[in-house]
């Protein structure tokens, strides 16, 4: 294995590989930053180009593109409150408030640091822990996936001002996710007689609508609020040293970076979970354990670092089941799986034995791409940030609207999706006014399929038992996740009470 890694290192160090990694990262970032075009779509577009390439070069280009696409999703999440990919949902929670405070440059730097560290740790996890972690994955059944989804939902306790309204918004999102054909059984539900609704409400469409339309409406009806943001950004730019200051600040709390990367690597290994779950769990954990938890949701830098570290760690993590078991962990992994098969390479333990140099060249190139995101991202990301800040609101609002329309149309090439996106977005704006946070609705839409599939499959798997429901509470792994769910729900309540008591004490003294 060490000989293979050594040979792979020599291959990766060639100028061709370096250029491929740079091209892949830039291309991926461009696609990732476009709302509606996910990493999967980008990789699928890239697939025909790799037909004519050598297996190694094709795989390296795909790996670099995947890494760049996940990172690129953070740009629009931070700058215009539109996650470029579902992996950057949680990035909006603090990234956009930072932009509103004129701190978008710091947010872009934070996202870059998080993504680079997360990407590298995910690859290290892939090299060091692949066989061990692959065995853990096999122990996960539908019940565990159900509880993982519920664990993700506990984040609502942290993001909603009112717990009851937050839960209601989450359930509303779960309900939206049930529209169309059921994931288990194939029953058609809640289509209201519209045949086109059988495909349900795509996650990207709901995501774009619920996050972006309220932002567009705000920009149109209250454009004066943005001038403050532009002014604050100008003041900070005059002071200079933003990059160095931000990097130093982030690195002074390495636990957040390491924990979020570890979460991303582990969630990436779970087939079907992926970056859209990992970024939410990492954000929740960062908030739960932070001393500055009161700042989360109001522009806390750790709230940008955590999801970005986690979603890029998913890239390496997702390759563990792909390369060791032949199970794609997420849709982009499935495209890479296709490339492997196209070149006659069969994923599995023998891949490391028979094609060791090729496999490690691919893995190391993904790691190199993560490192390359630092210089490329700091130039391109900050360039985009400056362009967005300098764009007058009367052009920014319609440009965002244009991109959201294209993004939602591109999901299924359906004009109906654009209408659904706008209606959901306007509904989200109205619901926000009555206290139902759109972010919690999106959380429900993201987690709905995982929870429902786990729920139905878990019940089906336990039909022989006297009480099939009990199977959700008796498996050791399930019990472990249930403990995390209880902690996730109780923690914000306990800390809020503690802070209240502290404040009362200070008031008395």
């Amino acid at each position, binding site marked *: 294995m060490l000989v293979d890694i050594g040979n792979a290192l020599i291959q990766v160090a060639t100028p061709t590989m370096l250029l491929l990694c740079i091209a892949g990262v830039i291309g991926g970032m461009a696609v990732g930053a476009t709302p509606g075009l996910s990493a999967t779509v980008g990789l699928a577009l890239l697939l025909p180009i790799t037909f004519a390439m050598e297996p190694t070069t094709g795989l390296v280009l795909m790996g670099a593109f995947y890494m760049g696409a996940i990172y690129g999703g953070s740009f629009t999440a931070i700058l215009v409150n539109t996650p470029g990919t579902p992996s950057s949902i949680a990035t909006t929670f603090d990234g956009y408030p930072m932009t509103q405070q004129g701190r978008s440059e710091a947010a872009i730097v934070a996202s870059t640091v998080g993504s680079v560290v997360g990407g590298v740790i995910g690859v290290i996890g892939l090299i060091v822990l692949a066989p061990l972690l692959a065995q853990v994955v096999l122990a996960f059944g539908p019940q565990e996936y159900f509880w993982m989804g519920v664990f993700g939902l506990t984040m609502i306790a942290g993001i909603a001002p009112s717990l009851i309204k937050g839960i209601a918004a989450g359930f509303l999102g779960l309900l939206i996710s049930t529209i169309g054909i059921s994931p288990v059984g194939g029953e058609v539900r809640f289509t*209201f007689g519209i045949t086109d609704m059988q495909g349900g409400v795509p996650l990207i469409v709901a995501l774009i609508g619920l996050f972006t339309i309220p932002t567009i409406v705000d920009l149109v009806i209250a454009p004066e609020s943005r001038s403050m943001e532009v002014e604050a950004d100008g003041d900070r730019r005059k002071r200079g040293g933003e990059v160095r200051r931000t990097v130093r600040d982030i690195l002074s709390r390495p636990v957040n970076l390491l924990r979020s990367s570890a979460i991303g690597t582990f969630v990436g290994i779970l087939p079907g979970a992926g970056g859209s779950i990992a970024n939410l769990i990492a954000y929740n954990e960062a908030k739960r354990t932070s001393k500055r938890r009161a700042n989360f949701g109001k522009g806390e830098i750790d709230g940008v670092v955590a999801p970005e570290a986690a979603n890029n760690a998913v890239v390496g993590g997702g390759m563990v089941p792909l390369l060791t078991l032949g199970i794609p962990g997420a849709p982009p992994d499935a495209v890479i799986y296709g490339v492997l098969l196209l070149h006659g390479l069969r994923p599995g333990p023998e891949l490391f034995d028979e094609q060791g140099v090729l496999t490690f060249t691919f893995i190391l190139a993904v790691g190199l791409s993560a490192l390359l995101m630092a210089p490329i991202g700091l130039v391109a990301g900050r360039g985009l940030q400056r362009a967005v800040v300098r764009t007058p609101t*009367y052009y920014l609002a319609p440009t965002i609207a244009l991109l959201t329309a294209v993004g939602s149309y591109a999901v299924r090439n359906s004009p109906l999706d654009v209408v659904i996106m706008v209606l959901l977005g306007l509904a989200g704006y109205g*619901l926000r006014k*009555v206290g139902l946070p759109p972010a919690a609705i999106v959380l429900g839409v993201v987690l709905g399929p995982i929870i429902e599939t786990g729920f139905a499959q878990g019940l089906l798997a336990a039909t022989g038992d006297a009480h099939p429901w009990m199977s959700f509470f008796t498996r050791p792994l399930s019990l472990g996740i249930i403990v995390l769910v209880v902690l996730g729900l109780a923690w914000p309540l306990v800390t809020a009470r503690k802070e209240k008591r502290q404040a009362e004490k200070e008031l008395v003294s």
Partner: protein
Amino acid sequence: MRADLVCGGILIVIAGTFWVQRDTSDRLYAAFPDLLLVVLAVLGVVIIVQGLVRGERGAGEREVNRRMLAIVSVLLVAWALGMGLVGFTISGVVAFVIMALLVREGRPRLREVATDTAAGVVIVVACFLIFTRVLLVPLPVSTLIGM
């Protein structure tokens, strides 16, 4: 209180509307959506009761320009519907210019209309070409101008 009553009411109406649409052919597959509907309705009732018990409290939301909100809502819906009917570029340029003028506020001057139209055409056509030619996403086209 008013926000709570409206919020609870919306949840109950949504739960009721979806309940009418449900199909109970299989208990196992219906269990999850049924559970969601029941919980949503219960939460709606809880929020209403909470609102009634609490009464008026807090500073309330910042006043919204309702006229502007209505205009932008109609514009967005019309854009979404128009994209499938008259194509991406025509609907895009028209909606772009109207939205830009809405943000500018005040009576639009001819120079501003001309500048916004030029900017709209450039941005929309560039977007159309990038998506259809580079990314191979087939956007809806107008039969009149072919794009």
